[in-house]
């Protein structure tokens, strides 16, 4: 799939986070109260209050020096235990990568560059993450097994500090590994590409707009025409009609122009011909800038499209209309009072079609250095790594090392876009209330075995009501799991860099930071709590 970045809805995301955190802690408190009631009877409230008080005392008496001591210890531990041998694997991989990726004297093309970039970023990811899976999940269990933790917890070190120290220490180690590897990887990429082809290492900074369409009669529609593609990612506008693809950019001002005062618009449309026509000429498009407030429109000249490679046009700030003897100012006249710029695209050729998706047209700000984009993508890996460390350390506070590793690994595997979509399907929509086709676990098994159509209602009796109830509970459990499993949709920054784009803050970096932060608090608190209620003398 082509990647189609979007903004993270900030306020709903925060609300969702609060609901999930609140819900889970409420559930945890309820369960612990109930179990204390069973074990201790009447004293349970007193005990609970003591526990809460201890918990809070630990929270407030946290010491930075102790946390750093523990972090340093964690780092030293991994370092002295030769965890950095991972560099040897890394070095070997890169020594021999040239063998496999060598281009046999072929020219360097865009896909080759893309392959190099994704290879390096993926290699870094897959060398760092397994290391962190194992280190973070084995750290605390190993200390408990060797009882070295005894000497720590009998000092004034809070369990919270132990968890934090572990997280920080592993993060520091992982960051070191990442930095070294990414610098080497970056040098490798640059050296692998001959000097004359290095211009392909670009880092475009796009301003993306929202796309809407008008059909051939000029009516607003959600999508253009499907010319028979299986994949409906792009939709098409018909030539020489009122059909338009309309991009609305917000926040456009003078700083969107380059030093010479031009606005760069890049597009990459696809053509669909209903007849072959003049084969030796590409289909034509033009831009129209429209300001609905002033009711003015400016149409550019027509340009031929260039499929896949794209066209970048510099639009001068002064737009002259010789026929009317007028001159418009792109910024002053066409940017609306709320900072929006509307760019309409039309296809010139009659009965021919141009296909486009939201990402296919953008305002191109001055390019960044390739290194900027590359290291931003590395930062994305760092965020994933922190998530892994958080989950690993948290799991290791209540599980043995191998099991904690497995749990972390499974959580990570489940964090992809596809699995989340699959879970959404099973749950039957974003919310559990939407219901699901063919029922939940037991109901669907019943329907499969009895060959019952999903649209047929189940017989109305208690057995089926109970079954559906159980299904509801199972589905709710799945829903809860889905809320807890990280969703790494925004973390895939490698796509941006491999495709020659800068990693945008609002669509990728920012959400990643927020998501990672969102896991810090629950993971650390859960780890702290698990370590606190646990007897460290394991028998």
């Amino acid at each position: 799939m082509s990647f189609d970045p979007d903004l993270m809805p900030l306020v709903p995301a925060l609300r969702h986070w609060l609901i999930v955190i609140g819900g889970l802690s409420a559930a945890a408190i309820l369960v612990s109260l109930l179990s204390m009631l069973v074990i201790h009877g009447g004293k349970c409230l007193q005990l609970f209050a003591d526990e809460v008080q201890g918990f809070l005392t630990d929270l407030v008496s946290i010491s930075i020096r102790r946390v750093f001591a523990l972090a340093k210890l964690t780092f030293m531990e991994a370092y002295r235990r030769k965890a950095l041998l991972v560099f040897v694997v890394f070095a070997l991989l890169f020594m021999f990568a040239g063998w496999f990726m060598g281009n046999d004297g072929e020219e360097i093309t865009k896909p080759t560059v893309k392959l190099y970039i994704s290879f390096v970023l993926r290699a870094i990811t897959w060398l760092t993450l397994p290391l962190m899976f194992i280190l973070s999940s084995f750290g605390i269990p190993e200390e408990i097994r060797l009882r070295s933790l005894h000497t720590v917890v009998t000092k004034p070190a809070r369990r919270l500090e132990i968890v934090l120290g572990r997280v920080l220490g592993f993060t520091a180690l992982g960051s070191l590994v990442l930095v070294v590897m990414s610098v080497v990887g970056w040098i490798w990429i640059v050296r692998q590409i001959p000097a004359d082809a290095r211009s392909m290492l670009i880092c475009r900074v796009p301003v993306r707009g929202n796309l809407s369409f008008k059909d051939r009669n000029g009516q607003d529609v959600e999508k253009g025409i499907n010319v028979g593609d299986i994949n409906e990612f792009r939709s098409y506008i018909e030539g020489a009609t009122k059909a338009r693809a309309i991009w609305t950019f917000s926040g456009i001002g003078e700083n969107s122009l380059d030093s010479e005062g031009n606005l760069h618009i890049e597009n990459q449309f696809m053509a669909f011909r209903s007849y072959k026509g003049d084969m030796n000429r590409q289909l034509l498009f033009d831009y129209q800038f429209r300001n609905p407030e002033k009711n003015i429109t400016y149409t550019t000249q027509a340009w031929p499209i260039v499929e896949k490679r794209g066209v970048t046009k510099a639009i001068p700030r002064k737009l002259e209309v010789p026929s009317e003897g007028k001159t418009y100012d792109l910024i002053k006249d066409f940017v609306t009072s709320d900072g929006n710029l509307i760019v309409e695209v039309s296809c010139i050729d009659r009965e021919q079609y141009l296909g486009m998706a939201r990402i296919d047209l953008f305002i191109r700000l001055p390019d960044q250095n390739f290194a900027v984009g590359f290291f931003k993508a590395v930062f994305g890996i760092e965020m994933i790594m922190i998530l892994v460390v958080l989950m690993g350390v948290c799991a290791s506070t209540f599980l043995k090392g191998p099991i904690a590793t497995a749990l972390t690994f499974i959580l990570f595997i489940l964090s992809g876009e596809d699995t989340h979509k699959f879970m959404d399907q099973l749950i039957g929509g974003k919310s559990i209330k939407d219901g699901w086709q063919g029922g939940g676990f037991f109901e669907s098994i019943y329907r499969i075995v009895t060959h019952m159509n999903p649209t047929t209602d189940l017989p109305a009796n208690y057995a089926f009501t109970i079954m559906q109830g159980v299904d509801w509970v199972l589905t709710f459990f799945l829903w809860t799991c889905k809320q807890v499993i990280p969703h790494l949709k925004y973390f895939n920054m490698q796509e941006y860099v491999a495709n020659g784009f800068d990693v945008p803050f609002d669509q990728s970096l920012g959400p990643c930071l927020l998501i990672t932060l969102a896991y810090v608090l629950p993971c650390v608190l859960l780890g702290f709590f698990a370590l606190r209620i646990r007897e460290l003398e394991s028998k």
Partner: protein
Amino acid sequence: MTSLTSQQRKLVYLCGILILLIPIISLGLPASGKDSPGGTLTRLRTKYELGESDLGKVDPSGAAMNLVLLGMRGVAVNLLYTQFEKERDAKQWEEMRATTESIVRLQPHFEKVWEMNGWNLAYNTSAEWDAVEDRYYYVKVGGLFMKRGVEQNRKSTHLQYHVANVYQKKIGNADEAKYYRNYFLHDPDPKFENGPDPAFNPDIMDNYLVAKKEYIRACQIEDTEHRPQHILDRTLFRSMPARCQFDYAQVLQKDGKFGEVTREAWNEALSDWTTKYGQEVFSIPIGDLNNPVKFDIRLGMSRDDIKKEIANPDDVVRVTDMVDRYRKMVNYYYWTTRGNCESEQTTAEAHRSLYEASQKYKSQEFDKALELSFAGMTGFDKILHQPEYNELKSEDTLVEECLLGIRVWKGIQELGQLKIPNDYPLKWLEVEHQGNTQLQQNVERAYKRAFLQ
């Protein structure tokens, strides 16, 4: 016990590793271009055509690579095909091509894989592009892809046939043939400096001649490797080289090249057809389906030849019958006649007159055009009245050419508001084909395209 310190021991290990690396590199180094043939293993691999271990562009960090390393090649290929389909549906052609590369690296001796993917690139993918250069690029990619398949599978008649097929049909017969054939000699990629892509057209020849060469290779593979093909009936399959020569001669005429080169081309085509192809031996089963008798026949055999070779008079009748049937199937007589006809000076003259008439008409030299078209019509009238070329009267391309000549001739007179005479050369041909609307349309379209642009 050793008296080495830990550090010394580590140094010894390091040296050991480095020493072990030397044989690994000398054994395993892959080939990189012509200068370095690669390590021993690579050279052996090349020698014995065992390219599997050359994993090439399979992304070493990708999931597919992991599966391969775990011995699950089939699963990896499955995964790659899924990816391939996704990329195809999303029109990510470059990515799809890279995936294709990975697939063939994993299955380098699976002929169908080469054929299917090469075809997909040359025919399906190329058609998805808007710019003709882009289309040609993918035709080339597909063709080269199949050529590489042939390198990996030197004993495959099928693949060799498909390579030739791309040169002949995809480049020669496509709607964009005019551009493709030009690009074949003058690649649009600036790095070839207006020359052909040396990988695709190493000898700088016409695409039909390259196709002919490739078809001949396919025939050779069939002969030497005893690997029969199952694409066409063998008589048709063996006719391909000669047919390419005919195509070449025809296209020269179409491009307005007359004279010695063209006549030579026709001559060679004729000789390819009658002396080479006509003398090929086909083993034909005749008689009872369950118990057929095999006879060796040649399409160029005369009745006397048959009588000489076969004793049983019953068999003579049956073999004659069979030979006739095969000749009809491959249009043996037609092409012989055509070849004979086109090698004649008068035919060449008539072609040239009609072609030049169109050119003059285009440049609005109407008097000359009128004269030339009439000369051409007269020429063809004469040729077609010869009994030995009787068969050509129903040959579409030739008839089309003649009718177009008449159309030009009439058009000029309409423009000059002259009265068209009641009788003129080739009028009988016009009358004969009056009912053929398809033909009429073609002529009309060609006329419009040529003159009303």
